[in-house]
């Protein structure tokens, strides 16, 4: 009868040794862990706030340039329009001119005039080169050729040849896009 009583006491003693958590405002003192003091993992929840960048925030200058840099023109240079302008200027200027030494000044004047007039077409980021040659109409032959290394998708040229009784004029306009 005594043995049975002892067995009954055993489980009751185990019940008494349960873990008790103390909650206090003070920082808990760290104690060495034993097999009876294994912390129970707790689920924790947290909320993340996404910070929205305010509208109109500017990127650093270099990044902005890389994103928005255009290698192809929005508005391609119109050779037809430029040709009309060159024709109008050259016909008007050389209509009554006879070849003489003063044609040197006239060729400079014409090239400046053509360049200024085509500039007014306001093609963005286009560089212009205007070449004018005025020669005397005599028993001689002039051969003129041009070649370029450029971007055919954006760069172009236009030319106009004028002749009257005593002289001829060759006007070439090159339009080169700034890449």
């Amino acid at each position, binding site marked *: 009868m005594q043995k049975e009583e002892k067995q009954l006491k055993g489980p009751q003693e185990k019940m008494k040794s349960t873990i008790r958590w103390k909650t206090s405002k003070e920082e808990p003192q760290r104690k060495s862990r034993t097999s009876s003091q294994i912390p129970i993992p707790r689920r924790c929840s947290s909320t993340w706030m996404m910070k929205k960048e305010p509208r109109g925030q500017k990127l650093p200058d270099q990044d902005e340039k890389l994103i928005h840099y255009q290698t192809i023109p929005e508005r391609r240079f119109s050779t037809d329009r430029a040709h009309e302008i060159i024709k109008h200027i050259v016909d008007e200027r050389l209509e009554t001119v006879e070849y003489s030494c003063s044609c040197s000044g006239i060729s400079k004047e014409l*090239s400046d005039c053509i360049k200024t007039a085509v500039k007014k077409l306001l093609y963005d980021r286009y560089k212009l080169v205007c070449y004018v*040659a005025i020669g005397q109409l*005599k028993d001689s032959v002039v*051969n003129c050729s041009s070649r*370029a290394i450029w*971007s055919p998708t954006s760069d172009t040229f236009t030319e106009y040849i004028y002749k009257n009784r005593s002289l001829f004029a060759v006007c070439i306009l090159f339009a080169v896009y*700034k890449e």
Partner: protein
Amino acid sequence: MEEFHSGDEVSFSPDEASNVVKECIEGIIGGVDYSQNKVNQWTASIVEHTLTQLVKQGKPFKYIVNCAVMQKSGAGLHTANSCYWDTTTDGSCTVRWENRTMYCVVSVFAVAIAL
């Protein structure tokens, strides 16, 4: 105070280009008299050869080369050019060459590419 030089900006050198053009002209029509049949071929060769030599320099430029060959017969020829570009990076050079029977005027225009 140290001056800052951007490694990317290269300006056009008219003297170097001028030497290249002179060599090309001499090589193609150096000791030759004017010929009506061959003048087309000559002008095409001069511009092409000049372009090839300029590109070999490996500089970041777009090039335009213009060549006019005229027989010496007493007639006059005037050439002029006007450019709207960035004067710090772009440039041009014009070479006038002649021999006993013909004149040759070559103009080179170099427009910088931004890298």
